[in-house]
């Protein structure tokens, strides 16, 4: 391992390999998306260009308001995802931190558990 360690002057050296890979993937996606434009015939018509709505003329726009439930799920997700991110450093070092570190994590999870119980009680998690 020593030869590779000597080269690692910047933390980004580890991630250089992603560049040629990205080039391959993006190239494949671009080629795949452009080829039908060259190979296939395109015809346009006012009715054909409408969005699909069971074969009937579309009623109004689709960019309308939708259920507030989706927003609440998104907000809850942000809370719990940040919780998970904060717990990652604890989880990596729980073997060294021992009981004291664990009690801190318990308090942290308990507060969020209360939040989940509150959301549960307020029927945010029910879809009717």
């Amino acid at each position, binding site marked *: 391992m020593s030869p590779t360690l000597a080269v690692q002057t910047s933390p980004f050296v*580890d991630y250089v390999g*992603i560049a040629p890979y990205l080039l391959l993937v993006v190239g494949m996606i671009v080629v795949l998306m452009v080829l039908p434009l060259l190979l296939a015939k395109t015809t346009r018509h006012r009715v054909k260009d409408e969005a699909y709505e069971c074969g009937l003329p579309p009623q109004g726009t689709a960019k309308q308001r939708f259920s507030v439930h989706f927003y609440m799920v998104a907000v809850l997700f942000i809370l719990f995802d940040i919780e998970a991110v904060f*717990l*990652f450093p604890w989880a990596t070092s729980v073997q060294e931190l021992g009981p004291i570190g664990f009690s801190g994590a318990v308090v942290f999870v308990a507060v969020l558990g209360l939040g989940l119980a509150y959301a549960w009680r307020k029927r945010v998690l029910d879809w009717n």
Partner: protein
Amino acid sequence: MSPDIAYFAATLAKIVAIFLLSVHVVPIMVILERRISAWVQFRIGPNRVGPLGLFQPLADLVKFLGKEDFVPAQANKVLFWAAPALTCLPPFLVMTLIPFAPPFEVMGRELPAVIVDSSIGIILALALSSLTVYGIAIGGWSSNSKYSLLGGLRSSAQMISYELALGLSVLAVICVSGTLNLSDMITRQTAFFGFDDATGNWAGWNIFSQPVAFLVFLVASYAETNRLPFDLPEAESELVGGYHTEYSATKFSLFFMGEYIGMLGMACLIVILFLGGWHLPGVAALDLSPNVFALVGLLVFMAKVGFFLLLFIQVRWTLPRFRYDQLMQVGWKVLLPIALANILVTGFVVAWS
């Protein structure tokens, strides 16, 4: 040829190989899925193109390329074009983090069988795989079709809900292995079942020390990749086609490419986190040379991944689809509390040992 150039060439070859491997899983999975579904349903399935219908995916690709590229008049053109690429790209990037085999030996130097051996590999893998939700939400919204919008909304809500269970179940595994690096995680599962003699830590496969986390991760990975029984975003019987209703030609196929690569990534993560990666009981005792050992490890790893990919297909054709309210309740009221409790129990045991 100087050793440095040879090593550089080997690294490039490795990157191309991993790219080709990821790409070729898609047609293999498509033909397997269609033949197995036919077998499950007492049909014959596609068997006309090539021997046993093996060239069917190739014919599908030709057909995709020859299809008209349709864009609805009311659609937001830029986002409509960006969405398939945004859905397809993140699962491919996850594959750069997967260590497929033990390090190879090229010119006396170690060549790790992974493109990016990141010290925060598992966080990066979860973060990248969750980026898929952007492509799906944008695709659903920009089509300006009501079915697409509903499919995109449902899909994004489902994916973020199950991502929590996914991330939290991984936390318990990290408590046991004490590292975020995916290669290190595998090397800490050398024994099949048992503890490390020197440190007293668990050194067996994590499926035995973390069975609950394994089940939560498995269920959540099906929801993350939008597979049955959680394929609500597509729900053909309710939403026509879900978020890709308005898509045609290769843009449509890119969504599915992303889905299949996502399944590959999830299967790889399951194998790394819970099933000891390339380890197989008895192989280490054979005392093979490094390159042969790496090759055997590669085969073992791919066999385990193949098992989980087949399980994806088998589950799809066995279980019916959830109702949407049931789906969200399973995610928030069952998997999330179980994952949280599992972290606390695991943390308790690890902290006091």
